[in-house]
Each structure stands twice: as C-alpha cells, then as structure tokens.
C-alpha cells in the first residue's frame, strides 16, 4: 500500500505529472476507442476509483475536503465529462463524414421549431434542475469562513483564489511580471485572436475532430494542461512555502528543498568560458538575449520555410506571424518549466538593472 502511494507521490511531482498529462492528453486524443461509451465508462471508473482509493488516505482527505476545494473537484469531473462528451460526439460525426454522410447535427439544423414551447421548456427545465442543485449544495456545504483578517499573520501557503492558481504556479518558473501580467494578457489576446487566425472553414457548427485536428489539439493543450492541470497542481500539490507535496504526503511546513538555480549568463560565462561575469549588462546578458531574439524573431521565419510551410501559405503573412508568435509563447511556458527541471535554469535573460528577467 505505502509502496503504491510512494509511486503515486512520485508520479505527481510537477515534472513527471506535467509530462504525463501532456503525453497522455495528446495521445488520448488520437486514441479512438476512448471516445466511445465504453471508453467513457472506463475513464469515469478510473477517475472514481482513483478518488475512492485516495480518500482512504488521511493526508489526501485533509486537502481534498477543504470547503473551497470541493468546487475544484467538481470542476475536475465536469471538465473530464464534457471533454469526453465532446470527443465522443466528434467521433460519431467523423465516422459519418468518412462515409460521406452529413454530421448528426445536420438532420436537425434544417428543421425549425417554435421557440415557444420547444426552447422555453428546455430552458425552464435547466433552470429548475440548476436551482435544485444550488439549493442542495448550499444546504449541505457551509461556506468557509476563517479567522478574521490579520494583515500581520500570513498563512503558509498563501494562495490566490483557485481559478488563478495556474498563474500562481507559473510564479515558480517566471517572474511576477511575466506570470501575473504578460502571460494573462496574452491568454486573453490569444483567445480573442482565435477566430481571426483559424481560417479553416470546416467544422463550423458541429462536433468533429478529423476536420480540425490541430486546432483542437492546440486549444485543449492550453485549456487542459496549462490551465486545468496547473490549477490542480497548485491546489492539491502545493503546500507550505509553495513546496511540492505528493497527494498522500503530509504538508510539513519544515520541508526543505534546496534551491540552486542558475541563469544563462552564469552558465555561459562562468561555467563554459570560465571567466567572471562581465560588468556591463548588455554584454553579460547577450547570450540569453540572442536566444530570446532567435526564438521570437528568427524561429517563425525558419518554421515558415520548413515545418509550418503549409500553414504559412494558407494563412498569409499577418495571420501567420501573429499565430505563430502566440503559439511559440504558449509553448515557451512548458519549455521554461523543463529548463528548470532539467538544468535548474532560473532566468534566460537576467537584467537586474531594469528588473527585467525572463
């Protein structure tokens, strides 16, 4: 029993959990048998079984049953269910499309029904169901209220509201100006840009996977991995001092984690060239600056001639440049995480003089 728990604790550590969920998500999306009723039952049973098992563990129970964590558990199941449901319907349609039939929605979309009663009744029923759920939930579970506010006594860990914990998790890898300002802004800009970047006219108005594979994979990567998985990590697996704790580990405030992170400039000048760090910031940080310039400036051009040639030709220059830059920035998040996990890399560019650290 403890052996299993130790393995799970180890699997849940950020580097492994993020890798597993990335590979798992993308792999699963291309694994057709999962997106059938049987596959759904299997996924659901695994999730429920995992929880049932975990709830026997006292340490897990403490964290999972904090009142404000209950909605997150709910979210986990709902997002899981709807993810399966969307993919299930997409595959039903894909099978039809492969045979030259129109998608399922087509049968209905040509017919029109009167808003009264058809739509009004659906709305009324949803409304009643929703009210009942809300009332029951409110009776069963008291809203949390902790000790009165005390500006002098910070709790450990101090956590943002749960829906921002993905961003708080990014603080481990990025400075606040990136994790708290630039990246959220780019998430919003990126979401808004989607309809203008994606010029694929197919798959409009029905579920389908095969007609828009890469759009869906990319969106789900952002939504499931960079948003939901990081929230779960931040909520359930980050304890005192924002240290990592496995799901069955006790949140020990005295846990010590050695921190010896280095920056690109240190690796380049001190480790490779065996000299002291140059005094002038531009010279000191040149290697890192060049890396960033290459990634953001040159890579899009290179990709347009090679890997993304097809996209470049289809999308045109403006769409391509905006789209690829947003894509690269999204990808930079896991890249920076891996650089930390593998090389203990702290900053790529570290200009303390201007508080400008990437």
């Amino acid at each position, binding site marked *: 029993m403890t052996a299993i728990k130790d393995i799970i604790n180890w699997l849940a550590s950020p580097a492994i959990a993020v890798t597993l969920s990335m590979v798992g998500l993308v792999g699963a999306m291309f694994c057709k048998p999962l997106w059938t009723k049987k596959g759904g039952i299997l996924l659901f049973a695994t999730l429920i079984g995992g929880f049932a098992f975990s709830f026997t563990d006292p340490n897990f129970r403490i964290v999972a049953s904090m009142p*404000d964590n209950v*909605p997150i558990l*709910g*979210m986990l199941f709902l*997002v899981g269910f*709807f*993810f399966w449901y969307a993919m299930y319907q997409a595959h039903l349609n894909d099978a039809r499309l492969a045979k030259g039939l129109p*998608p399922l*929605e087509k049968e*209905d*979309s040509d017919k*029109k*029904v*009167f*808003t009264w*009663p*058809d*739509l009004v009744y659906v*709305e009324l029923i949803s409304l009643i169901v*929703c009210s009942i759920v*809300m*009332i029951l939930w*409110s009776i069963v*579970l008291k*809203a949390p*209220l*902790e000790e*009165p*506010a*005390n*500006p002098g*006594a*910070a*709790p450990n860990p101090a956590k*943002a*509201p749960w*829906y921002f914990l993905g*961003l*708080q998790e990014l603080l481990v890898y990025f400075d606040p*100006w990136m*994790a*708290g*300002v*630039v990246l959220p802004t780019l998430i*919003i800009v990126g979401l*808004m840009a989607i309809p*203008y970047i*994606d010029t694929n*006219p*197919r*798959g*409009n*108005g029905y579920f*389908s996977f095969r007609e*828009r594979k890469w759009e869906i994979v990319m*969106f789900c990567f952002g*939504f499931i991995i960079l948003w939901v998985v990081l929230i779960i990590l931040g909520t359930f697996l980050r304890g005192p001092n924002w240290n990592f704790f496995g799901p069955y580990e006790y949140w020990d405030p005295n846990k010590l984690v050695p921190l010896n992170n280095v920056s690109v400039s240190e690796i380049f000048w001190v480790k490779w060239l065996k000299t002291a760090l140059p005094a002038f910031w531009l010279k000191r940080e040149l290697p890192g600056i060049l890396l960033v310039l290459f990634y953001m400036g040159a890579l899009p051009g290179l990709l347009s001639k090679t890997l993304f040639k097809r996209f470049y030709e289809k999308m045109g220059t403006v769409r391509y440049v905006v789209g690829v830059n947003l894509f690269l920035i999204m990808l930079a998040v896991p890249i920076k995480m891996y650089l930390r996990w593998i090389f203990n890399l702290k900053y790529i560019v570290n200009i303390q003089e*201007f*508080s400008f*650290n990437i």
Partner: protein
Amino acid sequence: MNLEKSWRRLQQQVVETQVWKSIFRVGIPNTNRKRVLAVLGNVVLHLHPVKTRKSGVKMRYTWCAGGMTFFLFLVLTFTGLLLMFYYRPTIEYAYGDMLDLREQVPFGIMREMHRWGAHAMVITVWIHMFRVFMTGSYKPPREFNWNVGVVLLVLTLLLSFTGYLLPWDQLAIWAITVGSNMARATPLAGYEGPFAAQIAFNGVNLVTAGSDARFGLLGGRIVGANALLRFYVLHCVFIPLIAAFLMAVHFWRVRKDGGISGPL
C-alpha cells in the same frame, strides 16, 4: 370526469378575466400564431427568435452551458442583493456581518448560494467556452461574439476575484494580497516591474509603492479599508453593470449572427 370539466371551466374563467388578459395579451399559446405572439410580446423571451433551429435547442449540442452561466448570474444577482441588506464594507463590520449571516439570519443559505454559485459560474463559463470551441462556433460569422464572450469570461473571473475579499477573513485578504501583488510587477506601471525604476524625474522615482498600478487598484499600500471599499463597489456595481450590458450584446448577437450555429 366531472372534476376535469369543472377544472377546465375554472381555467376558462380565469383566462377571461380582465386582469389576466391585461397581463397575458395572447392567452394560452395553443396555436402557432399565439406561440409567435407569446415570444414577441414578452420582453425577456423576445431575446429569442420566434423560431429556432432544431439542433440549437438540443442539450446534446449546447449543453445549455451558456444558459446555465446566465442563470447562475441571475442567481448571484439576486442572492447578492439580499446579502447587501446585511453586509457593510468596512473593516470594523465586514467580518462580524459574515458571522451574523451565518448565525442570526433565518434560512441562512444566501451566503452559501452566493459563494457556491460564483464557483459554479466560473466552471460553467469555461465549459461554455469549451463547447463553443469544440463545435467551431467561433468561426465566421460569429467571430465578434466569441470576442464578447472572452471579455465576459474575464469579467466573470474579476467578479469572483473582487468578491473573494469581502468576507474579510484570512482566506480573503491573503488571496487578494497574493493576487494583487502581481500588479506590483506590471512593466513600467508597477514599482517592482521592469523599467519602472528608470522612470524618474530629477532623480526622484515616479513609480513607487505609493503611486503604482497596485496602489491604484487597492487604494493603498496594503489590502486594507480602501481596498475593501473599492472591491465592494467594483463587485456590486461596476463589473455587474458592464457584464449585464455585454450579456445583452452577447445574446443579441447570437440571434443576429444567424442563431445557434449549425452545419450549413
């Protein structure tokens, strides 16, 4: 048999009174003409078109996730209003009012409904966005409405965030402290942010802890009385007004963009 007959008669009589007719102009919508008029004549229902694509009314397609989000918004508006009867946004009273809400107010589940409803709304709005994405409903001609949606998503999160402070307990102020510390690092505008220290005039820094973005948000250097008042006003008046307006735009555009999406 007789009972049913008299029930019918009673119904008939009620429907024919002047009071009833003055409220429900068209009577029971049992003909197509009356069904049309029922939707057109009602200020809430006329946000809908008179006829809808059959695929658009199916739960299978929309999951009613957008509808749920809107309904939760209404629940939150209503319970929030009730909470405003009891709650005073000052550091002397706020926490005590929370305790009173829990212990003194009969049927005291308003706070629960409001808090759980807020969490639920955040979840349903994500699921709605996910549904819209997975059905490709952001594609032309619905690009603009997707953008209205993104703003609504941000407003939903901000509503939830500003409300988080109001109970004035440890959970509240520290969550908001962690969240608002980010503003301190805004490039140029936050005093710990990139290049902020370089904005100086005659050697005097212009962006300081007493004048930066975080100070503007909180009305002070720490999460204190001013922050509470600011968040209260943002939470109860400012953001809901904008959100309600944008929801009206959102629904209107669903209609004007050709109703719920469907295969062409």
